[in-house]
């Protein structure tokens, strides 16, 4: 699939803040943390001279050298294991998966070693495991995964997925400073999306892990979502506004530990919930969200909890098939209208 292109070289130090794309915001965040803290280093496949498949680490090697920007063999389990070992020594690794699909060979290292170390003997592992996730760019079954649900049942892993440039920078910096392992998922569709270009503060800032964000205030129903689907939700909201339906959009930002308080607050406000995610419906994170609501906000509900998600198949390659598989704006509108009318 087409990743970064020749034109986009930004070998040099990124500016501090200023107008930035989603990818540039993450690059700024990592760069600033490496300047701030010598124990921070980057490790992964093709992250050095090449600057990463999506150029997230572009230029870092020129600034920080091979010692702190490490190209590895094609060995995801070793990347995770080595990151954990280095973290035990007091380093703060930021490990890249070239695509989040390739986190799966490291599933064991993440869920059994990284996740359980502090619990077993008090050894916290300040580690970040990041990479491009998500579908919608016709990359087929092996370059499109949304992996959050694979890890949600394993205590000890934080999961973060931003949807704005501001949050991306603030959250990657928070993740790097976090005392525990953080899985940081970046939807590849957002990296260079003009719509997400925004002015970032010059000064150092972080966005706290574990806190959702109200992307849009509304009274009639809540769409609870995250990542690239926040944009679908916002588009649906403006369209529904014209129909007199006032939609609130909650951007979770952190998927584990989940911000239950914000979810429940929104539900109690609107009494109707639509959960939207890009991964397959069955076994997806929507189940956890719906269960939490059905359990803790039952009395406030005026309608069934509705999930809009991908169909229960792998992510197909061909555009018409992928479009059928993925949740579309029309699916959200349809569900929202039925919910509103319920």
């Amino acid at each position: 699939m087409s990743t970064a292109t020749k034109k986009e070289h930004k070998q040099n130090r990124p500016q501090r803040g200023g107008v930035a794309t989603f990818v540039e915001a993450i690059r700024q965040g990592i760069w600033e943390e490496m300047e701030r803290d010598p124990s921070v280093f980057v490790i992964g496949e093709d992250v050095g001279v090449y600057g990463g498949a999506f150029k997230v680490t572009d230029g870092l090697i020129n600034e920080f050298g091979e010692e702190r920007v490490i190209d590895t063999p094609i060995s995801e389990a070793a990347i995770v294991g080595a990151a954990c070992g280095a973290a035990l020594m007091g380093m703060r690794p930021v490990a890249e998966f070239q695509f989040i699909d390739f986190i799966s060979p490291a599933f064991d290292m993440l869920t059994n070693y990284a996740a359980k170390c502090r619990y077993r003997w008090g050894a916290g592992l300040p580690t970040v495991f990041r990479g491009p996730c998500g579908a919608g760019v016709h990359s087929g079954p092996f370059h499109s995964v949304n992996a959050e649900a694979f890890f949600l049942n394993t205590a000890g892993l934080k999961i973060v997925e931003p949807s704005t440039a501001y949050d991306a920078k603030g959250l990657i910096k928070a993740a790097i400073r976090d005392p525990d392992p953080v899985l940081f998922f970046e939807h590849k569709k957002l990296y260079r999306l003009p719509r997400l270009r925004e002015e970032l503060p010059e000064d150092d800032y972080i966005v706290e892990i574990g806190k959702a964000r109200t992307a849009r205030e509304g009274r009639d129903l809540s769409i609870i979502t995250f990542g690239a689907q926040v944009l679908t939700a916002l588009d649906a909201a403006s369209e529904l506004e014209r129909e007199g339906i006032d939609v609130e959009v909650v951007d979770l930002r952190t998927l584990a530990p989940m911000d239950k308080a914000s979810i429940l607050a929104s539900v109690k406000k609107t009494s109707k919930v639509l959960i939207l995610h890009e991964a397959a419906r069955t076994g997806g994170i929507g189940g956890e969200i719906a269960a939490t609501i059905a359990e803790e906000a039952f009395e406030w509900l005026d309608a069934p909890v509705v999930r809009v998600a991908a169909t229960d198949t792998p992510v197909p390659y061909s555009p018409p098939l992928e479009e059928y598989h993925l949740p579309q704006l029309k699916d959200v509108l349809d569900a929202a209208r039925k919910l509103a009318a319920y």
Partner: protein
Amino acid sequence: MTNETQRKAGGRGGRSKASRESGKKGVAESSSSQGSGNGASSSGDGGASSLEEAGQEFQVTEMWLNGLPSADPLNERGELVCTSETSLTPDEMLELYRYLKLTRVVEERLVNLYRQTKVVGGVFRSLGQEATAVGTAYALETQDFIAPLIRDLGAVLVKGIRPREIFAQYMAKAWGPSEGRDLNIHFGNMEKGFIGPISHLGDMIPVMTGIALGGRMQKKNLVAVAYIGDGGMSTGAFHEGLNFAAVQRLPLIIIAEHNWYAYSTPTSKQTAVKNLADKAAGYGIPGHIVDGNDIIACYEVTKKAVEHARSGGGACIIEAKTYRRKGHAEHDDQRYLPEGELQFWETRDPLDRYERHLLSKGIATREKLDEINADISREVDEDVAWAESSPMPEPEKAAYNVFDNSVVPPAFRPPVFGSEQ
């Protein structure tokens, strides 16, 4: 002399006895299968680590010579050709040419289609390394199986997959073998002995171990050939799969395509061995090294390995030294290449080289080759047209075949509030 000291030592050193002997055939044996193997792998501070230690300053000869026959096969005019010792008939050699050229032409067409934005997703070229895929696959019987890499289009064509299937796949069309569900060569054809790969590198090694295991249980006398890159060999799946095959003495042949890069990563950052074939020692199996740009040498070494495997000799690794002249995919700017490297490898182009071989050895006339090329263009034109004429898949088709739908219904999008309301 220990491996470290080898790694430090410079100079070209001498060729090993083994490789000198088999030099005529462009085939060497590595330390893993040779008492004198260490000679081979200590021969010059070659390849990977020379690039590494010279801080990316390119050292053609050492990189190239390492572990390979002392002398390139040359024709009377002193031009680089292919090994002349072969059991191939002239007709077979022409067929081999056809596949080699076809591979190049199909990929060039794919690039055109890509530029016309008719290809969905990326195009991954094998320019400069086509001889490895074509030559090795040509040594197989119909009952044998291959699991190629994305860059082994040539092997897929040799196994009987038609260009139209490839074009349709790349264009994500309904008539493609995966009906638009997966991309490029990510499909399979059990009748033709072709198991398409998945993206996750290394995973096909255990799968091909299983093909060989199942074949043995069913008394099919088949050989399984799995292609893997210098990068893919670093995966745990490669290790587990090959180790199990070696223990079971299964007929699994690993074609280790040493094309010097894994995406942007040079082999020196992938492994500390000189030759990928050296890895065979860790599995108690033989390792062979061949000039991957000498299509006849690739055929010959594989032929012998196949016979050996079929007769119960177990697994082996064949390292083909070649070079990936294009970037990882079309978007890759190759900024990581050292000066001069590409130019050197252009002079070793496997197609030019084989053409020269056929002509100067009088195996084919220019007219004959032109005929073949014309024929190829015709076929490719037809197949592109066929593929373009295919519709895109019906959206709803996406719901089918997760499970056997006679047991579990298709995965349609459920109605809001569910089927129960």
